């Protein structure tokens, strides 16, 4: 037995007939083909699968696709707009907030939700906000800095995001 679901992911409409047991993360990755959202555990512990559902962070491995029928979903693929990186992406790049990159999409989505709610978080507030997202590579130090970078950038009304120029030495100069 299948159910018809339809939602918008990053502003684009998707619909499909799915089994009621299909996890949202599998819909996103396999039906919509957006593989930037990752799976790291099966107990809602690691946060690699974090996406925004109607603007709020949610672990998409613990939601069924049918549960969020009609929702607005945002994933990492929707962060960049008009070839301009979102400030959070820029922050992770500038502050070396990622290494293997596996937790990064979920971490960034959580951070985006935090900064929307709290544009000027303290370090403790940042750490609390990402405490449901595990990173094994970075020790969180640079992730915190990345989020602080984005917060500052987003608070600055004048900001003009700089596109990633890989291989260039920024920040230090």
């Amino acid at each position, binding site marked *: 037995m299948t159910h018809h679901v339809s939602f918008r992911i990053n502003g684009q409409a998707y619909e499909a007939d799915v*089994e009621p*047991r299909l996890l949202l993360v*599998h819909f996103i*990755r396999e039906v919509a083909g*957006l*593989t*930037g959202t*990752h*799976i*790291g*555990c*099966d*107990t809602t*512990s*690691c946060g690699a699968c974090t996406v925004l559902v109607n603007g709020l962070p949610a672990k998409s491995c613990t939601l069924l696709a049918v549960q969020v029928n009609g929702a607005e979903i945002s*994933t*990492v*693929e929707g*962060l960049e707009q008009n070839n301009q*990186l979102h400030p959070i*992406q820029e922050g*992770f*790049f*500038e502050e*070396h907030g*990622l*290494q*293997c*990159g*596996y*937790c*990064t*999409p979920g971490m*960034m989505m959580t951070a985006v939700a935090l900064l929307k709610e709290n544009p000027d978080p303290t370090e403790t507030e*940042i*750490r*609390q906000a*990402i*405490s*449901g*997202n*595990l*990173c*094994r*590579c*970075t*020790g*969180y*130090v*640079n*992730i*915190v800095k990345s989020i602080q970078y984005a917060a500052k950038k987003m608070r600055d009304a004048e900001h003009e995001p700089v596109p*990633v*120029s*890989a*291989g*260039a*030495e920024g*920040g*230090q100069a």
Partner: protein
Amino acid sequence: MTTSITGIGHSVKRKEDARFLRGKGTYVDDVKLPGMLFMDIVRSPYAHARILNIDASGALALPGVLAVITGKDLDAAGLAWMPTLMGDKQMVLPVDRVVFQAQEVAAVIATDRYIAADAVALVDVEYEPLTPVVDPQKALEPDAPLVRPDRENKTNHIWHWEAGDRARTDELFDQAEVVVKQDLYIPRIHVSSIETCGCVASFDRISGKLTIYMTTQAPHPIRTVFSLVSGIPEHKIRVISPDIGGGFGGKVPVYPGYVIATVASIQTGHPIKWIEDRSENLQADSFARDYHISAELAAKRDGTMLALRATTIADHGAFDAAANPSKFPAGLFSVITGSYQLQAAHVAVDGVYTNKPSGGVAYRCSFRVTEAVHTVERLVDTLADELEIDPAELRFKNFIQPDQFPYKSATGWEYDSGNYPAALQKAMDKIGYADLLREQAEKRARGELMGIGISTFTEIVGAGPSHTFDILGIKMFDSCEIRVHPTGSAIVRIGVQTQGQGHETTFAQIVAEELGLPVENITVEHGDTDTAPYGLGTYASRSTPTAGAATAVAALKIREKAKKIAAHILEVDADDLEWTNYQFQVKGVPSRAVTMKDVAFAAYTNHPQGMEAGLEAVDYYDPPNLTFPFGAYICVVDIDRGTGEVKIRRFVAVDDCGNIINPMIVDGQIHGGLTMGMAPSLLEAITYDEDGNIQQGSFMDYLLPTAMETPVWETDKTCTPSPHHPLGAKGVGESATVGAPPAIANAVVDALSHLGVTHIDIPITPWKVYQILEEHGVAEA
């Protein structure tokens, strides 16, 4: 000119980030091939049992299920067992018995991962439970259940290994004025990279070519082993290690799932995807540590350390599937003499089988160095406590001095370079050691529990050299191939493989530095055995010491040829040219110079007659020695008397990894390493009940540090270049994981030492501490 090169020493932002930030990485579960089927695995609920029957009919009746593969099927193809990297053998799928809980029992192949999971539940396996042996000490008793009846030797003892001079060591102990003794258990832990393991195996029946996308840190040796075991010619096997979501040693071994998926692809003619669940990853993949150590340190009453000895029981689980070099079943554990001048040392290790998954793979650690460092650094503190000497002072007194390098250690290692007093002094100055001691005395008088812990560790990384180091006979060199294109950009292919270390950036920086080409014009590729030169892979902090050196040497080979072409362009003798400011210049005439870009174009358009066209080089680098990074760490902890919680208030890490290619990336490696050092110190341990049931089978029970437990790491550096590495560099990825645990443990013991506490085994959990507080009557209700 120099600013655009951004070679060695620059914090160049990472090239690989562009795809990861956009969610455009390609991890193995992102690989989707036409006609792809899914595999899922039936696993044993028992730690030890006889398999009486496997009835797959229920699973096969489920629509969408194409096959159920059992050990008997594999046995018919001679593939029920596979070799391990340690020369043992391991079951791919069992024929008649299981030897650990969660062991692979059968595999189902289906059109969809949900159907595959349904089918797993429909495979009916009849077991006759057997008594398991879980404790390695009990495993050595004569009447213990036999874990591996398949072996000729009917015992659970796998091997005995020794290093050092036993007679001389015992003699020094007999004469010593002071001997301190400590038993330590370094618990079983699991790397738990956030991406689990998996593969997509695709056998093309027409070309006979097998392509495997695999979460592996060592694609080349795996291709060779797959060829030797399967009989498929090696040129018909392509192993691709795509983007890897963290490795840390856990993705070095070959897991049964890879092999079963390969067999299934050959049988069905379809690509087969197998991706572990976290619980499977955490319950069945190889584990680290699990060393039961008994160690002693002999000294004079004035604090002069004389000798060290240790005996160890190493719990390897049911298969000796560790990933150590062949001659080192206990890895580099003999580096146990650490940063200290000792006249003699002796270590003995006995490997033991138990009914647990394989042990002995690394957890961000170069072959058992963590166990060695924890032992010696705890012993030094125990001695300091016994002699009532400040632990820093005792270390200064016994350090190998800077002028003693190269230093031959008591167990035979030749340390390449070091300056231990400078690193410790820097750490003490940075953290304000004297002030902390005063603060601690005041707090202690008020009944508050504060501790200061030091660790001054020496790492040993970068295997080869090949005369001593091999894996299954494959020598531990590493490689690089550089091709400079006519317009002055280049492609670099390396034999090592990144799992987040940033090779695509740092290796480009090495080439940029040596060839004077901008980093952004250099592409680094790795992980595809069809294109990359053969290498042993990335683990044990070996990429920079081995492939990094190969890259520098290959670049210098290119520069040699380029110099001749430059001489041709400038119509001078090559001897009249110097390499300066990233260009070839006529000596003393700065206006007469050509860049590497000019040379590259000439190499294809105007090369000297008689010279081969092109500008490329390959190097297979065999390091003359390992490198010995080191560091001095100081940790300050406060203990909550109401909960037993240990809070790391400050942690200063002064690391010395020689010359640094990219300071930003090195700092990132140290932050991560420190966190993976803290994790087993305070949180992580895998334990089993007496029936062999794992107690931490998911992230609900196996606690990885979150941002809340992780402190703000304070890092600093000293720089003592390696004299034998072409760039003066050493490895760094694992230093912090090795160095941090004893600093934390020493700090906690220090906080409680006035109560008579001399040792606490890691992980130092709140419950463990609270029990100690209660025992000494200082717990707050």
